């Protein structure tokens, strides 16, 4: 008989739950960016309405992890697995909030605004979505070499964001009448940039899990 087979099974279940959570969070960002481009206010509202379900997923993961800490009194790597489950679920929840923020920006922009949404936003979103899938792969395989790549990818997102905001700044000068609209685009880019930061946080957690030490990938 494998010792602690039940506990190992429960840790695996938790892993599966986190993967599923990440997948719905990723889906929320994908849809939010689509709505932004398609000026689809109604669908944007469904993303906002759906967020409560994602909050519940975070709670479920937290409750399960806390219960396992209480019941199993884990040590060393087992304990770190549960600690990072708590942290990652909280990062994912914040990421879902950023998708909601983009949906709100879509609603604020409305259906009739005259602006074309710049391709930079979808390019940033794509990069951020690649980061989530990489972060979850690193989490699944407890692979720090994958986690390390998140730092480079995040640098790229930061760079894209900085260049984009510069561009928008110039536009506000030439089109001051659209400043409110341009601000919403700038905010959306900012939400994606923050979303990517949370992906690097997940990478830091993988380092903590494997090495037992704290790393900062956001520098």
């Amino acid at each position, binding site marked *: 008989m494998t010792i602690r087979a039940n506990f190992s099974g429960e840790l695996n279940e938790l892993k599966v739950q986190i993967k599923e959570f990440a997948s719905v969070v990723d889906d929320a960002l994908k849809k939010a960016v689509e709505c932004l481009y398609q000026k689809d206010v109604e669908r944007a509202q469904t993303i906002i309405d759906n967020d409560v379900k994602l909050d519940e997923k975070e709670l479920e993961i937290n409750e399960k992890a806390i219960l396992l800490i209480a019941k199993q009194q884990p040590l*060393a*790597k087992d304990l770190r697995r549960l600690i990072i489950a708590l942290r990652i679920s909280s990062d994912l929840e914040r990421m879902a909030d950023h998708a909601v923020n983009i949906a709100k920006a879509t609603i604020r922009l409305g259906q009739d605004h005259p602006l074309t949404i710049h391709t930079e936003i979808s390019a940033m979103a794509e990069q951020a979505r690649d980061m989530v899938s990489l972060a979850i792969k690193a989490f699944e395989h407890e692979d720090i070499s994958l986690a390390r790549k998140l730092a480079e990818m995040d640098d790229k997102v930061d760079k894209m964001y900085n260049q984009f905001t510069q561009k928008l700044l110039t536009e506000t000068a030439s089109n001051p009448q659209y400043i409110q609209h341009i601000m919403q685009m700038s905010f959306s880019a900012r939400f994606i940039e923050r979303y990517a930061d949370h992906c690097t946080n997940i990478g830091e957690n993988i380092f903590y899990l494997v090495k037992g030490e*704290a790393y*900062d990938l956001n*520098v």
Partner: protein
Amino acid sequence: MVNLTQLRENNSNIEVATKENVFEVSNLNLWYGEDQALYDINMNMGKNEITAIIGPSGCGKSTFIKTLNRMVELVPSVKTSGTIKYKDSNIFDPKFAVEDLRTQVGMVFQKPNPFPKSIYDNVAYGAKIHGIKKKKDLDIIVEKSLRDAAIWDEVKDRLKENAYSLSGGQQQRLCIARCLAIEPDVILMDEPTSALDPISTLKLEELVQNLKEKYSIVIVTHNMQQAARVSDKTAFFLNGEIVEFSNTDVLFSNPEDKRTEDYITGRFG
């Protein structure tokens, strides 16, 4: 990417004073007849520190702790090699007085083993043997020892009662008081809470931590959380060898050896 743990360690310039050791064990091997039970044990136990010894049954941890006061020699076929220095003298030296060693290195066992005498006489026993006769002096020793063992308030009105009238947890603290009465330097504890209920266990753990101020303690325990809670350093024994010996915080959070990780997370043992 920055390693924050390393950064913090580099930044903390706290000078660590060289700790005084009570025991320095070098290349200790031990055999029961032909069977070797301990292999090349090397470890130091610090003064006013709690050293925990963990490991699966039969790994040699009880044998090791009983070697520290040479009680293991009560088994006739025991042979040892290597040295154990207690305050700079090798305890295996033929000139070394084993009686003195056992006065200075007290022991508390798995099951409470009070003498079939009154609570008072249990504690006064050692002092009497060491020549203290005056009632007044004995009273002082008994009260002080019972206070230090955190049981005085529970027994002060019933000192003449038989020790067996106490609960298991109280009996164990009485045994600690009996051990303290002869003013030892080191206290060896061999699974001292394995026969106690959870509350008595926690009381005893708290007591052990308080005792650290005056004594050095070596504790063998099967309870991983107990070792993590009470000790400063932990040694993990396996098949008569030390697999890992390090600061308790490190050993239970980020052990170096895979076997330690597997044992403390319950993957074998």
